[in-house]
């Protein structure tokens, strides 16, 4: 096999690599820059990657990665690869060489102490799945004009090499698993899901296995429309005309197909929206089929038909197509029967919006759609009321507010519908704290300096206010000798939060104090077999330690415990709402919250009871609903403590009482 490479480049690499191989072990690092620079030159050649790969089984022993983050391949994370590849300087060169090493391990050319063949393969599959866009670069005008940087070029070469060496089959499987995980949580914001489906679509023309092909097609059709007529007529405007000529039988088939796809994936296509709007005008009796409603949903639709019809007219448009799914779920939940909801929604349709709110809402869709900011807001409220567990914090550190919106949507929709007009119309939200009124308009800073606007409309309106209020509550509750959340949470979320509060951390010293007591209290107040059968009625806002895949502490995070129940296998699990709806959370020590397959309701993630407690740092409880703390099994407490000490606990001082 002759490789298309420049000999002077390859000779320079051979020489530099040889020097490094021959060097004393302690001096290898000194020769890295020469070898890396020479490798960078070789990468510019057509077969550069192939040439370098011939040496990949020797990279580790030669010391190419020594002293840097790439030295220990078992600690590398696939999601960090794309960042390194696009970083300029030597970083991207080492990253590429590290991938070549992984290929060599995956193919069994090179045995590594800590990374098995299978692990290397999994790693590369994830890297490929996460970077499909590099493999199939977008042929956009922007990409054409901007040209490609050196890094982009090299990355494309690497991925072509990887695609040749590895099968695309396993990449497709990995990608579909990622999409399944996201879809299982039914988030309101689907931008990421959609972009991953678009990535997966690129794989359809490659030899991948039939099952994956089917799964990809299912998702692609969920976006493009799966029904018969819509496949014939792609253009939504023509589709609308075609519907007028369709027979009732055709329309029913069409409606059934759309509803099925929507409920299976949580994704809505433009054509589905066109169909529903048409039914709303001309074929009202077919609406239940198009929404895929159960008997309960149909009953609620019948009861509030005029309201629903009005909502469809105002809020269900192609740019906000996902709200159609929200509407279907809202009817299933029967939220419209809660007295304040209908007038609350009506008020929003004609609400006088603050100019900045109007701008913010209109920015969230493409211009020239002929849709008002109020339409967008109403569509957003429908989604939130229909999918209370689908609210996400986006890229913002505002888990508290997301948790609040979710809780109010579930248990106090009337309250939520009060807050939204306060913020959107009055530019102010007020909260009473220990007899004093706090107005958000008087507050300057919250936790977020610069709101990341990839959020649902309700969060866009509420987060800036609620975040400032939360910050102010934290400030006012400070220096009281206990964790601020003890006072902040009931004031912020409302009376649904219990006043009993316990934290694993001593607020004065910051050390872990009486951890076993903390664990016992949680078991005796939350474990169904130890708390004398008291059910959790409202979500419990708790604080957890977030750890990475090695169990190392990353920071604190807010989630809500939604319920505690036995899973289908009879194991007690804690079902939580995590505003950071990421599908694959790997917390180390084998603790991996699952989003489906263990009895989760869409939007929940869950962990076995003791695993959750091993990451818990603070919770609320009802002091009148407490079982016997001493009844908690000693081994169980020790098991939790061991997991805690060996993960986040390493960063804290532990004090035993």
């Amino acid at each position, binding site marked *: 096999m002759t490789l298309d490479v420049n000999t002077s480049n390859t000779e320079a690499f051979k020489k530099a690599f040889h020097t490094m191989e021959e060097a004393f072990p*302690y001096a290898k690092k000194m020769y890295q820059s020469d070898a890396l*620079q020479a490798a960078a030159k070789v990468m510019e050649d057509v077969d550069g990657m192939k040439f370098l790969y011939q040496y990949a089984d020797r990279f580790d022993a030669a010391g190419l990665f020594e002293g840097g983050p790439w030295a220990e391949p078992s600690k590398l994370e696939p999601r960090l690869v794309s960042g390194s590849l696009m970083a300029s300087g*030597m970083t991207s060169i080492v990253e590429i060489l590290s991938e070549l090493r992984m290929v060599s391990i995956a193919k069994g050319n090179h045995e590594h102490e800590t990374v098995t063949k299978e692990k290397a393969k999994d790693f590369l599959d994830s890297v490929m799945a996460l970077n499909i866009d590099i493999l199939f670069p977008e042929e956009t005008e922007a990409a054409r004009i901007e040209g490609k940087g050196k890094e982009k070029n090299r990355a494309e070469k690497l991925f072509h090499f990887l695609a040749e060496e590895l099968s695309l089959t396993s990449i497709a499987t990995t990608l579909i698993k990622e999409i399944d995980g996201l879809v299982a949580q039914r988030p309101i914001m689907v931008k990421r899901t959609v972009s991953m489906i678009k990535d997966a679509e690129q794989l359809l023309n490659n030899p991948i296995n039939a099952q994956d092909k089917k799964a990809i097609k299912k998702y692609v059709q969920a976006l493009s429309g799966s029904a018969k007529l819509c496949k014939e007529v792609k253009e939504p405007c023509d589709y609308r005309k075609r519907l007028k000529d369709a027979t009732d039988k055709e329309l029913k088939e069409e409606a059934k197909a759309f509803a099925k796809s929507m409920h299976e994936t949580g994704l809505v296509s433009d054509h589905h929206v066109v169909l529903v709007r048409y039914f709303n005008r001309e074929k009202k009796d077919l609406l239940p089929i198009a929404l895929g409603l159960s008997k309960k949903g149909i009953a609620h639709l019948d009861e509030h038909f005029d309201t629903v019809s009005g909502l469809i007219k105002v809020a269900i448009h192609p740019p906000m197509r996902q709200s159609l799914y929200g509407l279907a779920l809202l009817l299933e939940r029967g939220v419209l029967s809660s007295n304040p909801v209908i007038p609350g929604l009506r008020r929003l349709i004609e609400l006088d919006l603050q100019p900045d709110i109007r701008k913010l809402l209109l920015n969230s869709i493409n211009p020239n759609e002929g849709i008002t900011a109020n339409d967008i807001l109403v569509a957003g409220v429908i989604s939130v009321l229909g999918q209370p567990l689908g609210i996400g914090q986006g890229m913002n550190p505002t888990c508290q507010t997301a948790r609040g919106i979710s809780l109010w949507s579930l248990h106090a929709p009337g309250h939520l519908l009060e807050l939204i007009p306060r913020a959107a119309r009055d530019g102010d939200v007020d909260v009473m704290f220990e007899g004093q009124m706090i107005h958000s308009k008087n507050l300057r800073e919250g936790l977020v300096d610069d709101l990341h606007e990839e959020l649902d409309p309700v969060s866009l309106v509420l987060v800036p206010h609620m975040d400032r209020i939360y910050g102010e509550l934290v400030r006012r509750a400070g220096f009281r000798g206990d964790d601020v959340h003890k006072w902040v949470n009931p004031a912020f979320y409302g009376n649904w939060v219990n006043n009993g509060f316990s934290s694993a951390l001593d607020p004065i010293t910051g050390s872990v104090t009486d951890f076993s007591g903390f664990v016992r209290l949680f078991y005796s107040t939350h474990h169904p077999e130890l708390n004398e059968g008291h059910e959790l009625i409202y979500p419990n806002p708790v604080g957890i330690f977030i750890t990475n895949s090695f169990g190392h502490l990353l920071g604190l995070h807010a989630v809500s415990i939604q319920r505690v129940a036995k899973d289908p296998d009879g194991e007690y699990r804690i079902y939580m709402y995590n505003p950071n709806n990421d599908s694959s959370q790997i917390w180390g020590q084998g603790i991996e919250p699952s989003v489906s397959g263990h009895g989760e309701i869409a939007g929940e993630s869950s962990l076995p009871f003791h695993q959750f407690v091993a990451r818990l740092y603070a919770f609320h409880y009802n002091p009148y609903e407490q079982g016997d703390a001493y009844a908690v099994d000693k081994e169980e407490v020790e098991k939790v403590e061991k997991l805690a000490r060996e993960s986040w606990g390493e960063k804290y001082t532990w004090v035993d009482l």
Partner: protein
Amino acid sequence: MPLNDRVKDLSFKANDRQDRQVLQRRKTGPKRLNHKKRDEQKKIALIGWSIPSIEALDYIQRPYIVVSLPEFESYATEHQIPFTKWNFDRNLSYDDIYDQSKELHDILTEQDVDHAIPIFEETVEWAGALNSHFRKDPELYDHSILFRDKAMMKRRAHMGGLKVGVFEEGESKEDVRRFFKRINHSLLRHRDEDPEPIHVKALNKAGAAGHRIIRSEKDIDHKLSDGNFPCLMESHLEGVEISCEAFIQGGKVRFLNITEYVVFGYSMMVPPSPEIEALRPEVRDEVQKVVDVFDIDHGIIHPEFFISNDGTLYFGEVAYRIPGGHIFDLMKKTYGFNPYEAHILCSDPNTTEEELEGVFPDEKNHNGHAGSFLVYPKSEYISGINIPPELEDHPSFEKHTLFRPGVSKVQDQEGYGNHLGTVFFYHEDSEHVKQPLTDYVDHNFFM
């Protein structure tokens, strides 16, 4: 006039004659050192952590022990590098260092060491102290201080006949003000709006650390603080600045490298531009003079000179150690020998003529010009690196060592501080190397 005074007055002539007689009978001037050899069978201690020097010791197979800070111990253990940890306290007086070095000397003697070679500026006096214990010769220690205390160094150079600027030691801003005024008065520039600048330097720091240029009385208040004192104050020298790396054995310069400071503190080139290279014979004479004046028997010196417009060489300062700025790496590239090995050979008083044979190339015969550009962070926080797209396509571009930084907070910078990476250039034509070395001074390589 009282009687006593008159008697004294009359006696001074006689006294003066007597003093002259005494002086004629004894030797004045610098005390010459007694350069003793080390014990062949024993080990060499490398004072300071430097991988290329450790590698050099392994290549030339001299038994050794590395003495450095405790933080290097784990790396040394991992790679079986003979190692002794020692906390070199930067805040000790020279007397304290001499006292404390006895303890280190005892530890090293137990490990069969009897010679010390310094690597960095701050270890020069430690190596001097150790060698003076090993040879039982306290003057060896004083000799090492000559290369550390800039005032002592300049005085010695001045008395030996090297051309130096006017200098004084200063304790306070008032001293600086007085020195500044006197210099300007002497040059008849004290009435000028733009007076003659002076330089304030730390007495014993490497490179540009503690260096401040004073261009006005205002600068004295703005640029100086208590931390700058005691200091050395110096008149300004005009001209091109070069450094030399002279390898000495038996009191003779065996190899002379000349480095051109293209942009002071940022970039350097080896060998220098042809105009400077043409002055090699004069530079060589001047460097040999430094060797004689400072009574150097062996080792490496790294003196800096200013070449004035008429070709006169002014002595700036001299260090007794390996130079910074990757100068050795540039020499390796253009002269094709390993300067780290040569450093060890020259620093060992026992090295024989046979061993030195073939080590050094012909200093007049180089292969192209090599340049290094040191990249410093320009802001306190950095998140990524920013390499100009045309840089890697430049005809003289060789390689760079810039990585995306793992830590975004930049360490405190003193002098020119620590560079975070280096860009290397290499080309036949010195102009092709000099141009990028100048061009990128204002470019921010970090984002």
